[in-house]
């Protein structure tokens, strides 16, 4: 540009250089963002597209919402009800166990544990969070499944109960760490002031810590819920992988993720089964997105309130 006469336009050389690299960087980062958006939109649209044929007749007697899963029947039926119910059941059990214990651990780490114990506890929880799903599945298979069969008098150890128990262990560190963080984030001064009124620790926890940490606690539950819904290999190995509609936790079941993992390999492109499996995938996406947006809202509201 007009950088030939530096004296005529002060600082021009510097500005031209800066402006160019800036524009390039802006362009590059925008392009990266656009690519990210594009990829993610493709992901959603593709799964939606592949699921669509199964959604059309979802409510009919043969549709994915009402039929059972009988791929070898004539005509085959591809209902997802058993999988949705299994997912709900294992997730409920996992959270019912992991939420109270996780909050307890979080509170313990933030309030009760001496510093040295906290420095041990934190890596321990990270260890628990770092163990991959398949190892949990394997671990549950050689411990809980075997024990329940030997000592629990169950016909088979594989059950929604065992799946839920292992899932609880899997989501526990996420709930514990997130809640510990949000308890610890309550300002020192607030705690100190509360204690200086001479009240007991229970009182401070109930009246100060819990209200202040509430958004974080919600986030913790949501995080755990999302993880529990999406876990595949642990439930694949432990829930029993059977297509009956479960009626109790001692029954075997097949959560959505396990259904996909079991059936996708032989679902030929474009068949009803293929579409039903993508509908299962879509259900998982919708479930997690719903969880996320509810929490997003809730978090904003609680934070406005708590101030």
């Amino acid at each position: 540009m007009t950088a030939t006469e530096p004296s005529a336009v002060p600082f021009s050389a510097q500005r031209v250089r800066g402006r160019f690299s800036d524009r390039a960087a802006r362009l590059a980062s925008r392009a990266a963002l656009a690519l990210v958006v594009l990829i993610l939109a493709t992901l959603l649209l593709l799964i939606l597209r592949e699921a669509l044929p199964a959604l059309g007749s979802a409510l009919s007697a043969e549709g994915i919402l009402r039929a059972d899963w009988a791929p070898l029947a004539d005509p085959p039926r591809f209902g997802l009800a058993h999988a949705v119910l299994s997912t709900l059941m294992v997730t409920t059990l996992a959270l019912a166990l992991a939420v109270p214990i996780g909050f307890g651990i979080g509170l313990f780490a933030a309030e009760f544990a001496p510093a040295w114990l906290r420095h041990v506890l934190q890596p321990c929880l990270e260890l628990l969070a770092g163990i991959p799903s398949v190892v949990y599945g394997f671990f549950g298979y050689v411990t809980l499944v075997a024990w329940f069969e030997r000592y629990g008098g169950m016909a088979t150890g594989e059950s929604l109960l065992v799946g839920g128990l292992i899932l609880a262990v899997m989501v526990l560190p996420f709930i514990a760490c997130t809640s510990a963080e949000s308890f610890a984030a309550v300002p020192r001064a607030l705690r100190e002031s509360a204690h200086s009124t001479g009240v007991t620790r229970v009182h401070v926890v109930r009246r100060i810590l819990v209200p202040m940490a509430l958004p974080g606690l919600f986030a913790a539950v949501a995080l755990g819920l999302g993880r529990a819904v999406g876990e595949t290999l642990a439930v694949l190995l432990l829930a029993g992988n059977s297509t009956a509609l479960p009626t109790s936790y001692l029954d075997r079941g097949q959560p959505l993720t396990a259904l996909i993992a079991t059936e996708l390999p032989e679902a030929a492109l474009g068949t009803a089964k293929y579409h039903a499996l993508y509908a299962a995938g879509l259900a998982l996406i919708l479930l997690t997105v719903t969880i996320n947006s509810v929490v997003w809202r809730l978090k904003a509201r609680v934070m406005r309130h708590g101030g």
Partner: protein
Amino acid sequence: MLKVAVRSKLAVAAIAAATLLSATSVVRAENGALRVGGSTTLVPVVANAAMAFMDSFKSWQRADAALPDTQLVIYVTGGGSGFGIKSAINGTLDIGMASRELKDSEKDALGVHQAYLVGKDAVAIAVQVDNPLAKLKQNLTSDELRKIFSGEYRTYRDINGSLPAQEIVLLVRDAGAGSAEILQDKIMGKAQVAPNALQMPSQGALLKKLESNPNAIAYISAGLGGESGHLVTFALNGVEPSHPTW
């Protein structure tokens, strides 16, 4: 004397010219990779065969002079018969393995292809030695079998009043497995396998589970079942699943 309870063909469905030994167009990838996958019944055998094949030849040319001098690599994976055939159709695998006959629709979809029969195995109905049924019966009829697998009999007492009321635990393979389709074809007919059956991911897993659970009953490769010391196999309609004489 063809006296096999339920017979299955272990067939190898392969796409055109994709044979294990004289592949030409199959080794199309520059690195000379050959992909084999499908029936989990075949995986252990084929995997070991592939390893031995790679070890002894190293390059495709040394296996067959007509082939290029590229490194000989064979990948083996499971996934089930359905997966093997499907992948051969859509080209994600070079050789599909199946533990059942190809259906006409599949043959059409494959187009030009070759199917190789590598062996036959019977599907046997088996239980663990401590299973209540093992002491009572050596033979099951098709009708009994259908009632067991369809869930009409829920407990062992339903089969015979003298047996304890323990739950019958059905171990089955997932719908993509060859043996699952054979059971459906030969025994179940219109009836469905009870949905509360445990779907096992492979023959090996099914065997392990069957060996460890005294309540379980399953259909299993007669070869696998016969080798195990913990299992008892039943005759079907009076026919033993042993010594196949095809």
